C-alpha cells in the first residue's frame, strides 16, 4: 500500500525560463506516477493552468473528479515577492484557491502586482497577499533564514488560521535531515503543519540539460561559466509517492498533509461560470426577445411583410440555437460595437469576417455583409449544438481608426470587465537556435549562420537538410547537441503578448476571472490567457481587427462625395459591373483587395471572373491550402470546359446526386472548409459535431494525432455508402491539404465583396482610388511608386508635390473633364503632419511669393524647409530644386527658428552661387531618395542606351516576346519570394516600360545566390513562357547583379570612393561601393528596398 501523495509545488514552463516541462506533461506524468493529485503553481501567473486543466480532462478527470482516490488537479500560483527595502526577503508562497471566491482573490492579487509593474513583471508584497488571502490556502516555502520565516508564518497564521502549511523538501543538498528537523521545530513552534514536496521544476530527471539551458538563458551566461547558478543535480522532478514516502520516512505526517491539503480544495477551473455582459435592452424585453425583435424588424424591412420560407426557417433555427446556448447577449454586444463604429462621426467602416458570415442573424444585424441564405452557407460552421463553445465573431475595422473602437470598448465596459486576450509567444527556430547556441558557447557567427538557414519562421522542427545547407554536419556532436536541445525548447512558451484584437468581455469583474497585465502599448490591458485557453473555458471573445483596405475604401467614398460623384457606402456600390470584371480579367488589379498579389494576377486571366461568386472563389483558391491540395488545376480545367464536371455517386439506396448539392458551386472540387464538412456529413454520414471536429483537426494540423481518427471514419464511411475507395482517399487528402490555410466560404464571401468594391473603385475612379490608397499607407502589397505608376498607366494625371498646392494628404484636383492626383506632403520621408498643417493654414490667407515669405508666414523649422527643398516641393515658387535648396540652407540649423528668421530678413542678397544644373538622372534619384517615387522619369530610362547596347531588351519587349524565345532583360527588383515548399524563387523586376515576372528554380539558385539575393538592378537571362491565357513568365536561367549601374545615376560617386579599412585592394575602383564615411543609409539608397522573403 503506497501512501497517497500529491506534488503540490510544481512549476510548468509558464514559469518562464524556470520550469522546463509543459503543464500537460506535468499533469500526465503525475498521474502516471500514481499520485493522488498535482498542484500547478507558476511564478506569479496562472497562464499555464488552462492547459493543465485540459490535460487533466483528457485523462478523464471530469468523471474521476468527485470519486474517492481519484486523480485531482489543483491550480494556483507561486507568489514571488519583491525584495523588501529593509529586512529579510519574504519566502515564496504557493497560493491555491479553495473556492471560486478564492480564485477571484488570487487573480485580483496577481492583477494588482501586474498593473504595478511595467510589462512582464509582477511586483507583490506580503501585505498584498494578506489583503487578498480570503479562501486561499497557502504553502510557505521554507527558506534558509529561519528567523525571517517564523515572523512570516506568524503573520500568515494570524491572517488565515488553519490555512497555512510549511513546505519541506529533500533536495539532496547534503544537510536535508538537519533542515527537515529545523523545519519540524519551526512547524511545532508556529503550529503550522509541514507539507512534503519536491518543489518540482520538470517532470522527469532527463529534462535536466534543458533546465540548465533555460537557466543559462535567464542568467545570460554560457553553460561553461554558469557554475553554481545551475542546480547541482537532477532532483527537482516529479517523484513517485513511494520515493517521497521513503525520503520523508522520518516525517510521514508531511506526506499525509498533502492529502489534507487536497481535500480542502473544491475549486476547479470548471467552476468559472462565465457570464456575458448584459446588454441594456428596453423595458419589457429580455435579451433574446430584443435580439429576435431587432432581427425580425430588419428582415421585414428588407423583404416586406412575408418572409421567404427559406429565410424564415434559417432564422428560426438560429434563434433556437441562440436561445438554447444563451448567446443572445453575445450577439447584442457585437451589434453594439458595430453600431458604435457606424454612428461615429465620421462613421468607421466595418465588416464581419470569418465564420460569423454564416449566420443570418449577424447579416441582419449588419455585422456581416454576405447573405448566408442566398449563398446556402453552413450555419453549423458558426454555431453548433454539440460544440460547447461560443461562436467566433471577427469584425474588421478601418486600420487607422480601430483604436477608437478599442477605447470605446474599454470605456463602455471598464478595465475591470474588458481586456485583450493574450498571445503566447513561443520559441521560434531562429531565436531559439541563437539563444541555445550562445549558451552552449558557439559563436554568434555560427549560430546566426545556422539561424539564417531557416527561410520563414514557422514550423516546429529544424530540418536536418537546413543544417546541411549551411555546411554543418548534423552528426557533429556540438551540432547534434544544439539540435537536440533546440528541438525541445521550440514548443515552449517564451512570454505573453497581447493578441491583435481579441477582446474578452465579462458581466462581472474580469480581474476576478483572470489576471490582467499592462500591455506595451499605452492604454491597453490584456489578460493572461490566450485564444485556446479562452475557447477551452468558454469565454466570449470579440475580435476587433484592423484592415487597411477599409480605410482606403472609406477615404475613396469621402473623396467621391467631395467631388460630387455619388454618395456610396459598402452596401450600395453598383453590383456586378461588367467593366470591373473586364478589368480584372486582364489581370489589372494592382492596389485592389486580396486579388492584387502576383499569384492572383496570374490567376485572374485564367479564372476570368465574371461575377461576385467567381471573385469569392478567386480569393479562396489562391491560398496555400487549395494549392497544396492540388485543387487549383482541376478547378481551372473544369471551368474552362476542358474537363467534364462530374460528381461521384454513392451506391443505389442513396441519392445519386447528393454530392452535386455540396460541390456544384465549385464544379465538383472542394475549395472551402464548409464543403469539406458537408462532404463528410453527406457522403460519410458524419454528424455535424463530428464534421466540426474534423474541421478543427484540419485547422490545427500540428495536432496530427486527431486527424487520423477522422481519416478512417471518413474514408470507411464513404466506402460503406458505395463511393470508390480511391475517390474517398483523394477527398480526404484534399481536405488535409487545407491545413490551416483553407478559407471558410463565409470568410471568402466577406473578402470577395471587399475585393469587388475595391476593383470597382479602381476601374471607375482610378485617381480617387490611388489617392485613397496612398493616404492609407502603409498597407497592401505595393509601394507608392508602383501605385502611382499604375495610376499613370490608367491615364491619371499626377501632379508633383508643390508647397503652393499640396496638402498633407494626397489630393484630387480638377483637370479639365477628369481629375488629377496631387501628391501630398505626407509622401516626403520624415515630413511632419504638424508642419504641413501650418503651411496649409498660412496658405489659406494667400499664396507665397518667395521661400523666405513661406518661411516667415508658416514659421516652420529649417529642417522642414530643407525637406521641402530636397523633395523639389518649391516648384511653384519658380525655383529649381537646386537653387531652392541652396536658398533654404542659408538658415543655419543650430539656431532657434525665431532668431533664424529674424536674421534671415537681414541676410540680404547673395551673389549667385552659379551652381551647376541638376541633370535629370540626378533629379530622379533625388526624388526617389526623398519621396520613394518620381514623376519625372524611371531610373532605368537613363540606363536604357547602355543596356540596349548590350542587347538587353526592356520589360515591355520581354512581355511581347513569343513563347520559347530566349531573352535578356533587366530591371529594378521589386519583389523576391520563395513561397511554399521553396523549390522556386519568384522575382519581379521593373523598368520604365513595365514589369517582368521571373521564376527561378531553386536548383539554379545556389550557384548564383549572391546575385539573386543581392541585386537591386538585376539582369535576367532566360526563356519566355507564354500560357494560352496570355500569362507571361520569364523562366530565369542566369541572374546577374548589375546594381553597380545605379551608381551612375546620382552623379555623386563618379569620384573615387574610398574603401574603408583593412586589407583592401590597393586602388579601389568600385564605384557603387558605399563606404563607412557615407553616413546615413538614405544617402546610399537610390531606390526603396524590394520586398524580400528572407
Amino acid at each position, binding site marked *: 500500500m503506497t501512501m497517497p501523495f500529491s506534488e503540490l509545488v510544481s512549476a510548468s514552463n509558464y514559469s518562464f525560463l524556470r520550469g522546463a516541462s509543459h503543464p500537460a506533461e506535468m499533469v500526465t506524468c503525475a498521474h502516471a506516477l500514481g499520485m493522488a493529485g498535482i498542484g500547478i503553481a507558476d511564478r506569479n501567473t496562472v497562464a499555464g493552468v488552462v492547459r493543465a486543466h485540459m490535460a487533466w480532462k483528457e485523462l478523464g478527470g471530469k468523471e474521476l473528479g468527485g470519486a474517492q482516490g481519484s486523480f485531482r488537479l489543483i491550480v494556483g500560483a507561486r507568489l514571488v515577492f519583491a525584495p523588501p527595502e529593509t529586512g529579510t526577503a519574504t519566502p515564496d508562497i504557493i497560493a491555491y484557491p479553495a473556492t471560486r471566491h478564492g480564485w477571484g482573490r488570487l487573480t485580483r492579487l496577481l492583477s494588482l502586482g501586474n498593473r504595478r509593474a511595467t510589462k512582464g513583471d509582477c511586483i507583490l508584497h506580503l501585505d498584498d497577499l494578506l489583503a487578498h488571502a480570503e479562501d486561499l490556502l497557502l504553502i510557505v516555502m521554507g527558506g534558509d533564514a529561519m528567523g525571517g520565516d517564523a515572523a512570516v508564518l506568524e503573520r500568515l497564521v494570524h491572517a488565515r488560521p488553519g490555512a497555512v502549511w510549511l513546505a519541506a523538501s529533500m533536495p*539532496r543538498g*547534503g*544537510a536535508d*535531515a*538537519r533542515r527537515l528537523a529545523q523545519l519540524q521545530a519551526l512547524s511545532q513552534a508556529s503550529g503550522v503543519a509541514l507539507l512534503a514536496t519536491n518543489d518540482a521544476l520538470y517532470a522527469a530527471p*532527463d529534462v*535536466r*540539460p534543458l533546465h540548465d539551458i533555460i537557466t543559462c538563458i535567464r542568467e545570460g551566461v554560457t*553553460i561553461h561559466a*554558469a*557554475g*553554481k*547558478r545551475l542546480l*547541482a*543535480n*537532477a*532532483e527537482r522532478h516529479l517523484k513517485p509517492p513511494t520515493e517521497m514516502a521513503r525520503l520523508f520516512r522520518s516525517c510521514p505526517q508531511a506526506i499525509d498533509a498533502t492529502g489534507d491539503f487536497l481535500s480542502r480544495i473544491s475549486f476547479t477551473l470548471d467552476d468559472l461560470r462565465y457570464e456575458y455582459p448584459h446588454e441594456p435592452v428596453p423595458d419589457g424585453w429580455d435579451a433574446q426577445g430584443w435580439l429576435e425583435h431587432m432581427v425580425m424588424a430588419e428582415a421585414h424591412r428588407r423583404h416586406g411583410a412575408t418572409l421567404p420560407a427559406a429565410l424564415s426557417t434559417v432564422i428560426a433555427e438560429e434563434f433556437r440555437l441562440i436561445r438554447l446556448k444563451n448567446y443572445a447577449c453575445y450577439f447584442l454586444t457585437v451589434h453594439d460595437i458595430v453600431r458604435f463604429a457606424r454612428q461615429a462621426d465620421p462613421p468607421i467602416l466595418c465588416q464581419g469576417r470569418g465564420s460569423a458570415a454564416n449566420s443570418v442573424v449577424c447579416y441582419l444585424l449588419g455585422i456581416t455583409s454576405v447573405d448566408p441564405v442566398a449563398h446556402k452557407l453552413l450555419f453549423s460552421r458558426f454555431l453548433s449544438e454539440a460544440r460547447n463553445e461560443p461562436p467566433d465573431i471577427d469584425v474588421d475595422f478601418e486600420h487607422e481608426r480601430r483604436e477608437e473602437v478599442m477605447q470605446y470598448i474599454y470605456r463602455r465596459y471598464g478595465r475591470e470587465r474588458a481586456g485583450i486576450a493574450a498571445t503566447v509567444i513561443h520559441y521560434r527556430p531562429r531565436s531559439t537556435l541563437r539563444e541555445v547556441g550562445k549558451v552552449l558557447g558557439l559563436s*554568434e*557567427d555560427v549560430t*546566426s*549562420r545556422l539561424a*539564417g538557414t531557416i527561410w520563414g519562421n514557422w514550423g516546429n522542427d529544424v530540418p536536418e537538410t537546413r543544417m546541411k545547407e549551411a*555546411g554543418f554536419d548534423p552528426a557533429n*556532436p556540438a551540432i547534434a*547537441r544544439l539540435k*537536440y536541445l533546440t528541438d525541445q525548447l521550440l514548443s515552449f512558451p517564451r512570454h505573453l503578448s497581447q493578441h491583435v484584437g481579441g477582446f474578452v468581455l465579462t458581466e462581472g469583474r474580469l480581474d476576478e476571472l483572470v489576471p490582467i497585465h499592462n500591455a506595451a502599448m499605452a492604454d491597453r490591458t490584456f489578460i493572461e490567457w490566450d485564444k485556446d485557453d479562452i475557447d477551452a473555458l468558454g469565454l466570449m471573445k470579440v475580435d476587433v481587427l484592423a484592415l487597411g483596405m477599409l480605410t482606403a475604401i472609406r477615404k475613396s467614398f469621402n473623396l467621391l462625395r467631395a467631388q460630387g460623384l455619388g454618395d456610396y457606402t459598402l452596401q450600395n456600390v453598383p453590383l456586378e459591373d461588367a467593366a470591373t470584371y473586364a478589368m480584372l480579367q486582364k489581370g489589372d488589379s494592382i492596389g485592389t483587395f486580396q486579388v492584387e498579389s502576383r499569384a492572383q494576377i496570374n490567376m485572374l486571366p485564367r479564372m476570368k471572373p465574371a461575377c461576385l461568386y467567381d471573385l469569392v472563389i478567386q480569393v479562396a483558391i489562391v491560398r496555400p491550402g487549395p494549392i497544396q491540395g492540388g485543387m487549383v488545376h482541376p478547378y481551372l480545367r473544369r471551368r474552362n470546359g476542358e474537363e467534364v464536371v462530374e460528381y461521384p455517386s454513392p451506391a443505389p439506396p442513396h441519392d445519386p446526386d447528393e454530392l452535386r448539392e455540396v460541390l456544384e458551386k465549385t464544379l465538383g472540387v472542394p475549395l472551402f472548409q464548409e464543403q469539406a464538412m458537408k462532404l463528410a456529413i453527406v457522403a460519410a454520414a458524419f454528424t455535424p459535431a463530428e464534421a466540426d471536429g474534423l474541421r478543427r483537426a484540419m485547422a490545427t494540423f500540428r495536432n496530427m494525432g486527431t486527424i487520423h481518427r477522422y481519416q478512417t471514419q471518413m474514408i470507411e464511411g464513404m466506402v460503406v455508402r458505395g463511393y470508390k475507395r480511391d475517390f474517398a482517399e483523394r477527398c480526404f487528402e484534399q481536405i488535409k491539404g487545407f491545413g490551416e490555410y483553407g478559407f471558410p466560404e463565409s470568410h471568402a464571401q466577406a473578402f470577395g465583396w471587399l475585393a469587388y468594391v475595391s476593383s470597382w473603385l479602381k476601374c471607375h475612379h482610378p485617381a480617387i482610388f490611388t489617392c485613397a490608397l496612398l493616404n492609407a499607407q502603409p498597407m497592401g502589397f505595393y509601394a507608392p511608386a508602383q501605385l502611382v505608376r499604375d495610376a499613370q498607366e490608367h491615364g491619371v494625371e499626377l501632379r508633383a508635390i508643390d508647397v503652393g498646392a499640396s496638402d498633407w494628404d494626397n489630393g484630387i484636383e480638377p483637370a479639365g473633364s477628369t481629375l488629377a492626383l496631387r501628391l501630398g506632403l505626407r509622401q516626403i520621408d520624415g515630413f511632419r503632419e504638424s508642419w504641413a498643417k501650418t503651411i496649409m493654414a498660412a496658405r489659406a490667407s494667400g499664396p507665397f511669393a518667395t521661400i523666405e515669405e513661406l518661411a516667415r508666414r508658416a514659421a516652420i523649422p529649417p529642417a522642414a524647409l*530643407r525637406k521641402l527643398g*530636397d523633395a523639389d516641393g518649391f516648384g511653384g515658387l519658380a525655383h529649381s530644386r*537646386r537653387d531652392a*535648396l*541652396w536658398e533654404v*540652407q542659408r538658415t*543655419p*540649423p543650430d539656431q532657434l527658428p525665431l532668431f533664424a528668421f529674424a536674421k534671415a530678413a537681414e541676410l540680404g542678397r*547673395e551673389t549667385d552661387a552659379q*551652381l551647376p*544644373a541638376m541633370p535629370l538622372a540626378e533629379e530622379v534619384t533625388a526624388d526617389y531618395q526623398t519621396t520613394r517615387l518620381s514623376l519625372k522619369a524611371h531610373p532605368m530610362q537613363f540606363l536604357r542606351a547602355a543596356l540596349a547596347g548590350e542587347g538587353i531588351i526592356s520589360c515591355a519587349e520581354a512581355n511581347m516576346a513569343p513563347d520559347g524565345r530566349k531573352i535578356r532583360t533587366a530591371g529594378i527588383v521589386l519583389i523576391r519570394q520563395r513561397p511554399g515548399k521553396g523549390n522556386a524563387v519568384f522575382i519581379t523586376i521593373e523598368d520604365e516600360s513595365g514589369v517582368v515576372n521571373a521564376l527561378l528554380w531553386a536548383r539554379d539558385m545556389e550557384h548564383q*545566390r*549572391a546575385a539573386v*539575393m*543581392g541585386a537591386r538592378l538585376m539582369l535576367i537571362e532566360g526563356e519566355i513562357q507564354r500560357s494560352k491565357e496570355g500569362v507571361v513568365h520569364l523562366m530565369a536561367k542566369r541572374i546577374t*547583379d548589375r*546594381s553597380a549601374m545605379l551608381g551612375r545615376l546620382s552623379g*555623386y560617386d563618379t*569620384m*573615387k570612393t*574610398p574603401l*574603408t*579599412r*583593412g*586589407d*583592401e*585592394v590597393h586602388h*579601389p575602383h*568600385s564605384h557603387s*561601393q*558605399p563606404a563607412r564615411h557615407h553616413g*546615413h*543609409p538614405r*544617402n546610399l539608397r537610390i531606390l526603396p528596398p524590394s520586398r524580400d522573403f528572407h
Partner: protein
Amino acid sequence: MLYAKSGNALRLTSGDAQAVRAGLCAGMSLADARARFPHLIAVEQDSAADSGWLARLGQDCLGYTPQVTLLPPDAIGMDITGSAHLFGGELAMVDMVLDRFNDMGMTTRAACGITPEAAAALARYADWPMGDEAAAIRGLPLDALGLDDAARRGLQRAGLTSVGAVASRPMAAIAARFGMAAVDAIERLTGLERAPMTAIKPPAPLHFTRRFAEPVTHQSAIARSLLALLQDAACVLEKRGQGGRRFRLTLLRSDGARHRLDIATSAPTRDPALVLRLFDERIATLADPLDPGFGYDQMQLAIGAVEGLVSVQATFVGEEGAQDGGEQAIAELIDRLSTRLGPDCIQRLAPQDSHIPEQAQLALPASTNPAPLRWPAPPIGEPPLRPLFLFDPPQRIEVIAEVPDGPPHRFRWRRGLHEVRLYEGPERIAGEWWRRRGGEQAAKAGLTRDYYRIEDMRGRRFWLFRHGLYAEKPDPRWYLHGLFA
C-alpha cells in the same frame, strides 16, 4: 568580413578584397550578407585590439619623425617637415614607409600633403604619387572634407561634388549654410590654415640613474644609494598615482661588467623599504654573490609593469594600527617568499564557480592577483560542507552501505576499518553533461555522486562519495575524497 553590433543588428564593418569584389560592403547587415553567401566567414570586430595595434604602429613610426599622430581608427599622421631629407626626400620616404608596412602583411595607402588634413585626405582618396598636389586636392571628393552628413548632403544636392567646386564658391555663402566648421575644413585641406597636431609621446621610461664620482664597493653604500633611487622613483610614481610590479636594478662596474637584479611584487607598490627588502632577499639568494670588484660607478633602476595605485593616507598611529595591516603583511610575506623560493613555489587557492568539488578551486602562483570571485561565506552556525583536504585523485574504498542511497555503515581505507558513528548526506552532485559527448541525453550524462560527511567511532571525519546512482550503474564504487580537520 568583420562585423560589429550596431543597434540591434550585426553589421559588416570591413572586408577583404574578395568580399568587396563579391559586392559586400560595410554597413550591410550580416544577415543580408549571409543570405547571399551562406558560407561567409565573419569575425566580430575587436576595436580595442585595432586601436592597440594602431598605437603600436604609431610607436613604430617614431623612427621616422618625433611628431607622430594617431588618427583612429585606421590612420597615422607624421610630420616629416625637416626629416624627409634623411630618407631621401618625400617620394622615397613614402615608398619606404609603404614598403615597410606592406612587408608586415598590411595593405597601406599613403600620401604627403601641405597640411595633415590634406595628407590624410590624399592618402585616402587619391593615388600616390600625385603630380600636382593642389589639383589633386581640388579633385578630392566631398567625403575628404570630413563634414557631417547634413552638410555633405547639402553640398551634394547643390551639385558641388568635389573639394575644388566647394572651395571656388564664396566662403561666406558656405559659412552661412554649413557653418564655420565647413570653411575651416576647406581651408585646412587647401593649406590656408593649420590645426595643431597632437603628437603621441613615447612613454617616458621610469629610469633612475645614479653615478658615483668614486666607485662604491660597500654593501651599505650600495644599499643607501639604492634606497635613494627608490625614493626618487616613489616620488615620480606617487605623482602618477601608480605603483610598479617589476623592478630591475642594473649595477655597472667600473671595469665594464654589469649585474642585473630583477624582482617582482604581487601587488603594485612604490614603498622604498619594501622594494629594498626584496632586493636584499634577491641578493641573498644569488648563487655567486655580488662582486663589486673595483667598485660600481653607476646604478640604474628601471621600473616595468606599472599599475594604478591609490595613495593611502598615512595613519597617525603608524603601521601597526592600520586596518588592513594583515593583508599588507601577507602580501609582503608572499613577495618575500616568492622572491626567495621562486614564484611558482608559493601558491594560493582561488575560488572557481563549479559544483564539482575538485574544480571548485584552482591553485595559482601566489603573486598573481586574486580572482574577482570571493569564497562563499560559510552559513553561520552550520558545520562546514567541504573538507579542508581533498585527495587528488579520490581514493578507492570498500564500503558497506544501505541501498539505494543510504549512508555507509563501515568502510575500509588503507587497510584500516572505520565504523561509521555519525553521518550526514547525501549531497547529490550530478556530472557536467555539457563536457561529455552526447551528454545531453540522459544515458550519457555521466555519473552522479552522492557525498556523505562521516564521523567514525574515533571521531575522525571523512568525506566519502558513491560514484553513480544505482539507477545509473549497477554496482557503483565508493571513494574517499577528503578529510575534515
